């Protein structure tokens, strides 16, 4: 089993009812990569997956897998295997028959099928479950049967359509690790569709963030999180504090904007010029509470005053909901155990964040 690369050249998808699911897109997924497509429901990510798997023909452009154009090749003849959101296991077949179904379709003899199915079930840690029906397994086990069934046909590309969404949180976290592990062992290219940023960020080598049929950013999880390329990416992935204002100066890739809450400096990756309407994004965990001393000591270039409104205990950290004038600001701070009195409701605080942690972006028309 060796992964292959997937290329989308000028691919777009317009449904017969006129709905544009995917706008013209170029995308290259490297061989052996764990690639996630992240976006809200209806953003077109499943459409992309179905075009790669062959269930949909793109309206324009073409898909190539391993350098081979896939135009006119049906899903049963592509080197891909799809894991459905509801898994779509065959309930009337036993677990091993499910796993071996792809081999059966290729005319492999029964003994060889059984042997291969047992190997794959061992790979996904399901030894001894081969003769059960899928209905007798737990959700996580069924999940692994679906993975084994897809891997049985030795696909070059494994496509996963939100396969973990039906599982509970604990199991989901466990399965993330397992999927990542299986991907590493097999070297197959994984294309993983999800609306759960946690899944995308923890498992993926690279992530594409999609919105309304457009891929807004492709990059590593860190790049997506730390250097969002668009307001949508900034707000969809993780949480953000947002300050609206006008650019009053730019220098060395930084932009200074004037907001009702004060003047802030942030990274100006989008190349805004003076006078433009701008938004400044800063993540709640990058905003700090200055309990004593002033911000300059901490290197906090941007500072403002805010009043404590509410405090939620998450366990390892605290969510602080503050207000600067009529602008809400939220902070995530580590629960060091000595902030009880300091964060009482109504207390006034000086808060601040580093310029390097803030991103200035153009306001979308």
């Amino acid at each position, binding site marked *: 089993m060796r992964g292959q690369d997937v290329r989308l050249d000028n691919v777009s998808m317009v449904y017969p009812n006129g709905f544009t699911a995917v706008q013209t897109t170029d995308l290259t997924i490297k061989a052996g990569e764990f690639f996630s497509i992240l976006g809200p429901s209806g953003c077109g990510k499943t459409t992309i997956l179905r075009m790669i*798997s*062959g*269930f949909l023909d793109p309206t324009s452009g073409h898909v190539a897998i391993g350098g081979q154009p896939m135009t006119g090749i*049906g*899903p*049963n*003849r592509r080197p*891909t*295997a*799809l894991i*459905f*959101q*509801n898994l*779509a*296991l*065959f309930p*009337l*077949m036993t677990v091993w028959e499910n796993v071996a*179904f*792809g081999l*059966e*379709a*290729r005319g492999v003899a029964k003994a060889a099928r059984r042997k291969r199915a047992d190997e794959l079930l061992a790979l996904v840690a399901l030894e001894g479950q081969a003769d059960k029906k899928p209905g007798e397994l737990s959700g996580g086990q069924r999940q692994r049967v679906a993975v084994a*069934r*897809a891997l*049985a*046909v030795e696909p070059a590309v494994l496509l996963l359509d939100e396969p973990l969404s039906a599982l509970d949180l604990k199991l989901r976290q466990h399965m993330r690790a397992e999927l990542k592990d299986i991907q590493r062992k097999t070297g197959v290219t994984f294309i993983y569709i999800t609306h759960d940023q946690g899944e995308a960020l923890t498992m993926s080598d690279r992530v594409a963030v999609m919105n309304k049929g457009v891929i807004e950013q492709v990059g590593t999880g860190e790049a997506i999180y730390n250097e969002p390329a668009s307001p949508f990416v900034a707000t969809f992935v993780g949480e953000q504090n947002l300050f609206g204002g006008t650019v009053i100066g730019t220098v060395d890739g930084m932009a200074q904007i004037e907001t009702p809450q004060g003047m802030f400096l942030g990274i100006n990756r989008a190349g805004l010029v003076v006078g433009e309407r701008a938004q400044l994004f800063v993540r709640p965990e990058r905003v700090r509470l200055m309990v004593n001393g002033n911000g300059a000591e901490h290197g906090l270039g941007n500072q403002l005053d805010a009043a404590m409104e509410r405090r939620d205990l998450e366990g390892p950290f605290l969510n602080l909901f503050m207000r600067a004038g009529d602008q809400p600001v939220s902070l995530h701070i580590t629960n060091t155990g000595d902030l009880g009195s300091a964060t009482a409701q109504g207390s006034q605080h000086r808060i601040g964040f580093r310029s390097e942690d803030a991103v200035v972006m153009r306001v979308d028309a």
Partner: protein
Amino acid sequence: MRDLVRTFGTGLTTVIIGLVALWFLALILLPQVSMVQRAFTVEDRAGRSALLAVEIERLYVRQFEISRERDALQKSAEPAPAEAPSPFAPSMNAAPAAPSPSDPFAPSMRRPGAAVEAADPQVVAAKLAELEAEAAAVTAKIAELEAQETRSDALDTRLSLENFTSMSSIHAKIFVSTLGYALMVTVLALIVCYPVAYAVATAKTAERAALLMLLLVVPYAINELLRIFAWVLILEKQGLINSVLAMLGFIDLSAGEGVRFVASNWAVFTVMIYAYVLFMVFPIYNTIETLDKNQIEAARDLGASNWRIHTRVVIPHAKPGIAVGSIMTFMLSAGSIAVPEIVGRGMHPDWFSQVIYRRFFETNAWNQGAAYSLALLAACLVFIMAVMTFFKVGIRDIAK
């Protein structure tokens, strides 16, 4: 029960339960019991009661002959026409056989001997007296025998398997072949209906599914007999198919070419499949509808051919629906009388349903008709059980 009372109140519940009981008793239990009872009862019409009937018949004929002879004698003795009161008591047994007195052929039946002897009044008087005596004896005998006939013990009624065991070899052959025909219809209907049901169940849009369903249901807005007759119009020698073939120049109808499609089992099969298409399509459609369509896509994605997708994924899932559809189609076609009667008119051998019909309404052998019906019912049930066992479908699967 308590739920019913709570939902509908005592009054309505009583009505509902009463109606259900009535339905069960009058439309299910009593007819079945009556049929079973008749099937195992022999009314031996070929025995003593039949002999009685023949004897009575013979006496009526003799009575008629006497009256004719007497008339002839009287006519030859005196020219004035004697009053001849009809000797006939209205009787079912005698009337059809004997010609009526006003029969134009009656004079030719006059015996030559009677005319010769007419000359001597003495001889005529003696002969007349003799005839009168015989007539009285015959009338008395008729009364006696008719009294015997109406007595219930004259009917030789007894419990027996004779109605079944006396089935002629031709009827037995028809019985077996009818089961074979019904199986044939069922298999053909399944082959025709499965793709239709699949197409409707997997239609891309709801509108298309509704349209397909409508096309299936519309023919059922027409009376069943008309639908069958419509097929006769299509399949007859001067029918639609041959007309179209003639129009296209393949055959010459005026030269007597063309196939007479009706009066063949294939025509009967075709019409039956058409008549029972919905009974097969609906159950299969219902089960395929409940199949997670992702399973079909998953199978295709794993490289399965269409054939394998159907044999491994769709058909196993649709098995209960296929079983229900097949059972209904089998029962309906095994018991159908209208289709073989109308489409198969003139065809030999008949279907068993036609044999049963004739037992009842032509041969007047109700008991054997009941026995034949029971035999057909039993054979169908055994057949269904066998098929369900073979395909490993349980009653509970079907109930789903």
